[in-house]
């Protein structure tokens, strides 16, 4: 017994040695980046002559109307995308459940667009929903609108509709697959019990199915929220330049010719990282509660 334990210990040690180089790189890149970012956000950047720590960058961004607008917009994008994705994903999973008993092919289609990169989706949205896009041209062709320019703005628009469409399209299958897996493992008997005890369809869903799938939905949506909150490429491609989503704003500030804007860019990145970290922690906690149950 003792022998085996030490053997195991040795094994574990050698695994850590083997992993060490990779871990070092990850830690260096991640923590190094984080610490550098933090220092620079605190106005410490000797290379460009900033030597004293202060919170000016944070004060500057939080008093800047543009930043606040970006923050609100980013919350709007993340929240709306997550909410719509969740509702549609749960509905889709419920609809697909009967078809799934043993049918791989449906599963395949459902998970197909998980493999398509976000960028491709963004280009698709552009192609379809621009003022000169396919949808507006078809609608013009059908005389639903008189000219393509009359098509309501869905890309580069203040409500970030194009961005949300892209996220929803991409995240429905992600949440849906998780919810479907839970639904299939839970089975339909709990709903049957509820129906038999006098619950109508809606009550059975609301009182029984939803609580059973909720932990999974919450976990999935926290991931989606954190991602849509911090992702850069989609708002960059499909969003307005002002107000821009936070990650885009941070990028703009960082590439600004005025070097003094750098601490502010870093402060924004820190804010994004902070909010995402909070969400991931919430997620871990929720999933732990879920596992315990």
């Amino acid at each position, binding site marked *: 017994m003792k022998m085996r334990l030490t053997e195991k210990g040795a094994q574990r040690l050698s695994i850590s040695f083997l992993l060490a180089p990779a871990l070092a790189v990850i830690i260096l890149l991640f923590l190094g980046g984080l610490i550098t970012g933090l220092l620079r956000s605190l106005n410490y950047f000797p290379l460009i002559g900033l030597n004293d720590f202060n919170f000016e960058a944070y004060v500057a961004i939080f008093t800047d109307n543009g930043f606040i607008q970006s923050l609100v917009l980013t919350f709007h994008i993340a929240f709306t995308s997550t909410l719509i994705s969740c509702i549609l994903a749960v509905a889709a999973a419920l609809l697909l459940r009967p078809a799934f008993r043993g049918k791989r092919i449906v599963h395949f289609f459902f998970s197909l667009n998980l493999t398509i990169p976000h960028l491709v989706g963004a280009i698709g949205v552009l192609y379809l929903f621009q003022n000169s896009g396919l949808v507006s041209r078809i609608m013009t062709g059908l005389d639903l609108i008189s000219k393509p320019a009359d098509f309501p703005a869905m890309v580069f628009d203040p409500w970030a509709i194009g961005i949300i469409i892209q996220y929803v399209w991409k995240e429905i299958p992600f949440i849906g697959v998780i919810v479907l897996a839970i639904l299939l493992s839970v089975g339909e008997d709990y709903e049957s019990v509820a129906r038999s005890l*006098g619950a109508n369809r809606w009550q059975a869903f609301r009182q029984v199915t939803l609580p059973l799938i909720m932990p999974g939905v919450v976990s999935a949506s926290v991931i989606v929220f954190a991602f849509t909150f911090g992702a850069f490429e989609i708002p960059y491609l499909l969003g307005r330049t002002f107000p821009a989503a936070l990650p885009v704003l941070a990028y703009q500030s960082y590439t600004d010719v005025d070097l003094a804007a750098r601490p502010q860019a870093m402060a924004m990145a820190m804010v994004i990282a902070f909010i995402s970290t909070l969400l991931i922690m919430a997620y871990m906690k929720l999933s732990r509660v879920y596992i315990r149950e």
Partner: protein
Amino acid sequence: MTQVKLSGLTKIFDAKNPPAVDQLDLDIDSGKLTALLGPSGCGKTTTMKMIAGLLRPTSGDILFDGNSILSIKPEERGAVMVFQNYLLFPYMSIADNIGFGLKMRKVSKKEIRSRVTDMLDLVQLPGFEDRKPNQLSGGQQQRIALARALIVEPNVLLLDEPLSNLDAHLRDEMRVLIRRIQTEMGITTVFVTHDQEEAVVLADKVALLFDGRLQQFDSPDAFYDTPRSAEIATFFGGTNFIPGHYQDGVMKTDIGNFKAPHSAVGDGAAMLSIRPEAIELGVGGDNSVAGTILSHVYAGRYARFQVKIGDLEIEAITEPGQVKLFGDGDTVPVNFAPDKIWILEANSTPQPVGADSAG
């Protein structure tokens, strides 16, 4: 009180397989306890789910008090099913589980609370309100599932093996409890079991199902005294079978002729059946033949003898004192009391239960 009638009820899950329930006709008496008995996989749960409205029959009809209820939603049928695997809602307290049906009916919180307490007393788990299902043993969960069904005072109560997880002592208690509640409340109850003893102890009438088909629907004693086939007799415990020819109330066999006034068939090739308990050793007479005792077992409350008669070997169960009277190798008269003999179809030789011959 509700009278339940199943008429040609059929469920086919998969056209490749034989029907799970096949042309089932059953008249379930109002306010009575009917047992649905049969081996695993014979379609008991499927039948219950169809009555509860949780599965749509492939064909056939279900009538409550003479009216078809196929188009009525499960929550409006007044038939509550208690599942085999209890299925308490895992995230709800015991009180919320039991009160679920009342909550769906928008009963006030206060009334729910007091009726839940009553129910917990009834199933002998007082004070369990705030526990979670995973803090209960299997038997306790089963009783909570029963309470959760009873609280809504159903017209038809469908119990799918509700006692399978209880130990012998608790099972006896729960049988008495179910019987008492059922009689008091006058709920038409269908009780699924694969245990023939449980069916006999509890039920007013027993419906025996093999492979989705009804074999016999009768009062419990009929399954022992007048089973309709050798398979049924076998399912209800060991029976002696002797092939022969039946004519004018006499069964002619290789080991002798026996008077047999009771028969399920007419004249012709037939099968004599007699239960081991009915065989009398050391008793002579018209229906008696000579046999040789091969071996015996003393089992405290009874004794069991293997007896060779001609080329046949039969089993006799007697009162325990008889081991003192007969020893192995003794030749004794073996009496087949005419009233205890039951004549069956000849070709229904004992087959593994589920074989396709009894239809």
